[in-house]
């Protein structure tokens, strides 16, 4: 008989931010120590993952219980990954994040790779968010970043392939899926993902894979794209001048809504980003803050997670 190995460590999935960020399905066994999983549209059943990207932000926040929580974001070619490290996380992970945060404050630019646990939560409004709890964090050089891009692109392509093969046979059960050439480690996730996401688009992942491959191959010219054009307050028609004195509350509301609409990559937009962008458009922090409150009160925006805002659709 095979030895029972029920306490095996969960492998780390290679996944891009977009696939992870768009996941809305989770699974948790009934037992106290059962692992929990985030299941992506492509059927990755993620308890733990290996992600990398440009470290964009790390901030300390006080939690209600008086502990310090470090929140931050990593950017890969497909979008942003959000992570947080608290007092209950391994000391080494906390120390690493602190060290990276200091380097970031000193203006350094760096790639970070992390092994992290997938987290999943649902707001009272029903919106579902994923984030990461880092276990081991390292700063990596660009060559390791490009190896990660290539590996993650490869793993994503394998999932896209399995996703396609699974469509016609998923209803016939795991045996039929194995028959259709789907690797056994993708069968449990796809069995859950296909019915849940039912027809949700996955083609964007192919695009992100191609961008990642271009970057890994050093073809930067191929991946440059035009910046998203923000409909800027006081834009060209009045000569690009600064906003007029006493820009009205109406204006502030509209600009704020436009900012949120443009900057939201699926997880909402954080408070600080909004305040700064409002600042850049001539609205001071106080006005921006009251604008947020006003929009929240009138029901135009949501605060699904503390300090993160989304438009009500």
């Amino acid at each position, binding site marked *: 008989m095979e030895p029972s190995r029920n306490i095996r460590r969960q492998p780390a999935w290679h996944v891009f931010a977009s696939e992870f960020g768009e996941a809305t399905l989770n699974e948790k066994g009934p037992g106290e120590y059962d692992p929990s999983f985030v299941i992506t549209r492509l059927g990755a059943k993620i308890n733990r993952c290996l992600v990398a990207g440009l470290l964009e932000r790390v901030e300390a926040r006080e939690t209600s219980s008086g502990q310090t929580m470090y929140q931050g974001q990593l950017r890969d070619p497909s979008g942003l990954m959000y992570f947080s490290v608290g007092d209950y996380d391994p000391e080494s992970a906390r120390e690493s994040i602190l060290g990276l945060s200091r380097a970031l404050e000193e203006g350094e630019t760096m790639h970070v790779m992390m092994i992290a646990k997938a987290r999943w939560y649902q707001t009272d409004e029903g919106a579902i968010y994923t984030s990461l709890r880092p276990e081991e964090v390292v700063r990596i050089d660009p060559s390791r970043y490009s190896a990660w891009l*290539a590996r993650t692109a490869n793993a994503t392509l394998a999932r896209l392939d399995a996703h396609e093969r699974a469509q016609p046979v998923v209803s016939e059960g795991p045996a039929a899926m194995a028959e259709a050439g789907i690797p056994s480690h993708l069968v449990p996730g796809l069995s859950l993902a296909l019915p849940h996401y039912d027809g949700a688009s996955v083609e964007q992942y192919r695009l992100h894979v191609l961008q990642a491959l271009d970057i890994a191959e050093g073809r930067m010219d191929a991946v440059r794209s035009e910046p998203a054009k923000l409909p800027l307050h006081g834009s060209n028609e009045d000569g690009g001048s600064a906003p007029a004195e006493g820009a009205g509350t109406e204006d502030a509301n509209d600009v704020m809504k436009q900012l949120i609409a443009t900057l939201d990559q699926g997880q909402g937009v954080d408070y600080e980003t909004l305040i700064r962008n409002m600042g850049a458009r001539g609205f001071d922090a106080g006005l921006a803050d009251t604008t947020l409150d006003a929009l929240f009160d009138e029901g135009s925006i949501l605060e699904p997670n503390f300090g993160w805002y989304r438009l009500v659709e």
Partner: protein
Amino acid sequence: MSDHPYGDHVALVLESCPDASEEDVVKAFRQYEEEFFIPPQDAMHSIIRKLQVSASPPATGKAAGAGSGSTRAAKPMRKVERLEELKGDDQNVEITVQLVSHNVREQTVRGEQRTIAFGLLEDQPYDSSTPSTRWEYKDWAPKSELRAGSIVRLEGASVNEYQGRRSINVNKSTRVVVLEEGTAPVVVPGEPMNIADLPKEGNVCVVARILGLRPDVIHRRDGTGSIDVVRGRVADDSGSIGFLSWEPLDLEVGQLVKIDGANVRTFRDTPELNFGRTTTIEAYHDAAFASAEDLEAASAQTIADLRDGARDVRCVVEIHEWQRRTFTRDGEERHLWSGQVADPSGRCRMSAWEELPIAEGDLPVTVRLTGVRVRAWQGVPDITVDNADQIEVLDGPPWEESIDFATHSVEVDFDELAEGGGRVGVSTKGLIVSIRDDSGLIQRCPECRRVLRDGVCQDHGAQDGQEDVRLRLVMQGEASTISVFLGRDAALALLDTDLEGLRAAIAEHGAMAWVQSLRARYLGRSATLRGRLLVDDRSSMFMADALEAIDEDGAMMATEARAHWEVA
């Protein structure tokens, strides 16, 4: 500013950061792109952030909800799906299981003769996607609803824990709800089966020839005496199986017999026939039945086939290392010979309790082993030779290729390795996904070599530890992980340093920062490793003789991925 491809991006950045110079912004975009492979659309956010003087926003009071405190009130009925969720002292449990086997037996309980039933059950009978766990059960007041193969819901069962093994007790008060009648084949008494088709547990009948027979003694664990038994091996065309008889046998090697009412029990990883009072063994006549010689030849095994607990094993191996060790037991000096053997399928250890006619100068020596047994230590087989007459020295190996023992490592796919049993002399390739905090210098107990925690050994108390080096890693393949240990030599070789250098490095940075520096070097990288995989009930670990990180070329990997998946 000279021409650059970042026009609109620069304009946007300047809009957010009016104080920055265009030159700096272009430089930043160029640096992100050339040094960090970040396209301008992705770099913009970071650059704005960097250039803006941080005006930290006013912190607002409220915060995310408090952690979910789990309150666990004692529930009258504990309903679980998996056996693993049960603790040793759980009472009043509800679980749905499939009965793998069901045997009825008379037993004396507190001086009273009682009928009880026992067997094996499996959890999650309706979930084929996850492996089921098997436990033993006892039914103290045998219920007619319990039958081999049935799927039942037990309500009000309890857990029994004895010497770390948990089992299920079906009590008088336990309610049994039959969800599905047993469909498992019920073996008809008297209907012989092929040995190869025997179930892992259950009552069977076979027609087979006796290949081996020898008296043995089993000592009761509690020291209340010993039982005389007979061990041996029987075979038919389909295979062979060892047996253990609790009754004296009046049989001869080579005799063909029909054995009815034998019980298959799986000891360690090896099934075995058990003969008891209710087993009938009678002579059988079949002129067409394979001869003892043919059956013996067919039952020879290779090292890769060896499983823990196997007895009466026949195989041919090459002995490559052979040493005598001396130890003292009960004041008497005794010897044990042991060494390393190989055949084309792999390597393993061999031990002998008697001196064998093998001189160290003659190695390698090819020998035929007959009637030997196999013990496994952490999943790695060790052939045990009890008597010198179990071996026969051959002139040379029966296989053609020569085995170079030093490099005899078999390359195994990572996931295949992770799913299988213990292996010696293997190499594989995987990805380093964790470097554990307790890597580095450790203190070992001078008595038992166990690692001391805060200077204290689990068994031997406070000790002056012996310093040693150990690295603990986790590596993964496509879908599985293996814990990897590097001992002193392998660790120092990987780090390209000596003990002094390692001590100095750890002293300089502190243990935690030193481990972090290892992560910075190795986390997320591919590596090859060579060594042995040890497997026990709880886990598997790879003891690496060597680990080598691979330098990977992302551009090359990307091109390969394009080719493999046929994407432009």
